[in-house]
């Protein structure tokens, strides 16, 4: 349509919903730079006091594990049930442990 070929980069947006909680991914948006990304994120994702702090990061700067790596990465934890407290059978008389 219009001649302008200025694809603004994609930013991923993370919002801390309240003090004491960690930032959580809420979605993404396009912006020319990080300042604009923050102000757009404010308008798009926090119109109802959903946040007290915003992080934005360029989507291309995120390194993600790939789904095909899932088994390699996460399966080894499968047979290590002793990492969970429920693995240990202890006498009922033992309280508060």
């Amino acid at each position, binding site marked *: 349509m*219009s001649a*302008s070929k*200025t*694809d603004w980069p994609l930013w991923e947006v993370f919002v801390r919903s309240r003090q004491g909680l960690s930032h959580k991914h809420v*979605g*993404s*948006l396009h912006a020319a730079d990080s300042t604009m990304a923050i102000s757009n994120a404010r308008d798009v994702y926090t119109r109802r006091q959903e946040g007290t702090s915003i992080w934005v990061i360029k989507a291309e700067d995120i390194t993600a594990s*790939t789904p095909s790596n899932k088994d390699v990465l996460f399966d080894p934890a499968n047979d290590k049930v002793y990492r969970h407290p429920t693995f240990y059978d202890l006498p009922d008389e033992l309280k508060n442990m």
Partner: protein
Amino acid sequence: MTQQMDLNQRFEEYIALDQKIEAKDWMPDAYRKTLIRQISQHAHSEIIGMQPEGNWITRAPSLKRKSILLAKVQDEAGHGLYLYSAAETLGISRDEMLDALHTGKAKYSSIFNYPTLTWADMGSIGWLVDGAAIMNQVPLCKCSYGPYARAMVRVCKEESFHQRQGFQIMLNLSQGTSEQKDMAQDALNRWWWPSLMMFGPSDASSKHSKQSMRWKIKRFSNDELRQRFVDMTVPQAELIGLTIPDSDLKWNEETGHYEFGPIDWSEFEQVVAGNGPCNRERIETRVAAHENGAWVRDAAAAYAEKVADRESRQTSAA
């Protein structure tokens, strides 16, 4: 080949177990295409949907009403943006989607091709159009594609005020002077049938429904959702003393549902085909907004480039 089969099998398992499909997971091409079509159409509807209501922002009857309407229209812009982002995770660019909208290749909900003639239309849109949209959207919160489902959760949270503010406008008008009550009734008369059409063609003639239900993109059929909408809305109209413009409408004690008259699908087809009262105006307005904003986008990009350039020179100098 076997790997392909494994992937497809895993996909089918995920669907069967109600597990979400995420952006980087393997998915069949047809699933991806269906989602791109549906999510981008949905995004376009939110964006075009700002126009009929935007028409009344400067003429709202009070400052309070004006603030409410502004907030609602701004929400719709937000909905469009959440949905465009969700569609982008499937590998289509924002520009491609906008081009498709601007050139008329992509569709959007046909309801937004009707004009908003009076203030009561703001009431009817909130009450009926947002009401029907909520009916469609709530099941989408459980759709099998993760990014779409998450976007819909946000959208649905915001929608409920839209419907309530619309109903309140209708309530106030119906308690007003006889002219105001007539205005409310007239708006209901004009918006009722197009609202029923928002659920799409009846199940018998709906092209994409079956496959979408199998993929758990869609959870209920068009006719099921339409029936729910009628059942919900008729008592609301009664409550404020307005009459649904359908002489066939009657309560069926046995089924526990309202029966309603036949929908004029030829009107629907005409509007979808581009011949509704406002199709051209909507697209022209949208294209003009995009083109008139080009210099802003260019300037912002040029500025960002300049700042990045300056920063990189500073680091290399240091």
